[in-house]
């Protein structure tokens, strides 16, 4: 259901949208999702940190987080990474798309590919080390996010822009973000669309615009303020 675009940037046939920029997807991922969520600083303050991502895609954001987590935390600190994907790539597609960063991720990429689950609907827990688990949820986020039991510290709102994938930015998603967040939970997303900003604000997040990656326009970061529900 997916294929690489001619220029080399992985592209989704489903949404006609690119996963990440061809020139430097890794730097963009780190800028938007790690810097945007004040990472590594925030996870250095916790024994146990939980990230929830909408849109696993090629796994680039996860690999970037995993590697940086190990580089910046102590051996007793743990990371659980939960990620939703309605249209999962298969293991060969992921290997192809992440080819440019093969040497950068080395053993991490190898391990992910080795343990990547079969493409069956539902929850898949992947234990990567004593400190790191990945939980892949191959389902529509609107169906599966209400089924998640977790205390989320940071949201990686990836997936595609609201104009091409409006379902991902639904009221259900925003309500469940409220349910799963606590005061201080952070979020970031590459988009700054008004619909997304308003939705996040109504879900109890204080939201600000930030300069997007490279020549891109604004993106959004936010912090959960508690909120009534």
């Amino acid at each position, binding site marked *: 259901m997916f294929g690489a675009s001619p220029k080399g940037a992985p592209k989704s046939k489903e949404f006609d949208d690119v996963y990440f920029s061809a020139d430097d997807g890794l730097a963009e991922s780190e800028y938007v999702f790690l810097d945007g969520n004040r990472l590594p600083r925030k996870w250095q303050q916790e024994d146990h940190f939980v990230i929830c991502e909408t849109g696993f895609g090629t796994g680039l954001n996860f690999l970037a987080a995993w590697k940086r987590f190990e580089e910046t935390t102590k051996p007793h600190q743990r990371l659980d990474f939960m990620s939703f994907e309605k249209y999962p790539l298969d293991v060969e597609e992921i290997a192809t798309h992440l080819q440019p960063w093969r040497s950068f991720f080395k053993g991490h990429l190898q391990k992910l590919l080795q343990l990547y689950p079969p493409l*069956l609907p539902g929850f898949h827990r992947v234990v990567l080390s004593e400190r790191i688990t990945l939980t892949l949820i191959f389902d529509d986020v609107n169906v599966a996010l209400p089924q998640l039991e977790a205390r989320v510290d940071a949201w990686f709102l990836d997936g595609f822009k609201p104009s091409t994938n409006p379902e991902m930015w639904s009221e259900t998603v925003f309500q469940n973000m409220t349910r799963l967040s606590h005061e201080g939970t952070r979020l970031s997303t590459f988009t700054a669309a008004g619909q997304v900003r308003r939705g996040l604000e109504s879900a109890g997040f204080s939201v600000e615009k930030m300069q997007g990656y490279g020549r891109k326009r604004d993106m959004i970061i936010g912090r959960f303020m508690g909120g009534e529900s």
Partner: protein
Amino acid sequence: MKIAIVGGGLAGCALSYALRQAGQDSVVYEAGSMLASGASGNTTGLYNPRFCALRSPESDYYTAAYSMALRTFKMLGDIDWDPCGALHLISDEKKEKRLLRTVKNWAWDDVHMRIARSDEASALAGIDLEYDALYLPESGSVSPEKLCGAYMRDGDFHLNAPVEKLEDIDADIKILTCGTAALKFAPDLPISSVRGQITQVKATQYSADVKCNICYDGYFMPARDGVHTLGATFQPWLDHSEVIEQDNQDNMLKLAQTLPGLETGLKVIGQRASVRATSRDHFPVVGRVPKLGNAYISAAHGSYGILSSLMAAHLLVDMILDRPLCLAADSVAALSPARFK
């Protein structure tokens, strides 16, 4: 945190393993003189999800468990893992209705589950089959006994260590993984015994061609070292592990009724009987036990213990270590001991 696991079968050994994977030590207390002395002690066992017509919290559990098992078996050595595939024969109208709906509603990619027409099924099986079948290419068998051993490779356990009262063990968290013996501590849970006997037969020249597990009301496995295992009886009215001669004949009769000719010349050379545990609604009981302090349970895995014990172990680790849960909330609720009123 001190964690005690009461029972050294698949459920307890898998839990010890999953805890260790999370960097957490535990101690298994086994009443018998060896690990895997009950239903988990068979030398070979099939692993399959439990089919139902719709996608449901229950089917999601078995799907997640199947995925988990494939990933885990790959990493564990010396468990006699044989992903030979399984054909679930569509031998009557009722099965046809149910299994066709399973394929449609579970929506597994056909790389992982599909209907094989009888000619294709025959080629997969290595013998002539007159039925279509639901085919699971990655299904197969492991040795439950060796699987317990692999789970416990670096784990701490005590044998000949029956637990009479939970207060007797010094631990912050106690988990009941002892099948129906859990009733000693939680008598209100609707868990009961189901006796099962498997039969071993010497392969004939014809039967030796069988290449994958064939499942019907019983099952027939490819020969390993010249021996097939077929099973299994299902006797909710019995709770002993003595061999019953008639059970071998019953297993053979089921084979002969579904695959006539295959039974010809097969000589019984062994058998093993044991007691599995099941629950009132035939779904496992996994989670925190109401009104029993810091106690959890993983039991009633029935005939699906290989898959179910492993998935249950990961769920309990999440609950105990207060991590995000590895299963959908609806599945967790369906497993909960609190579901029985």
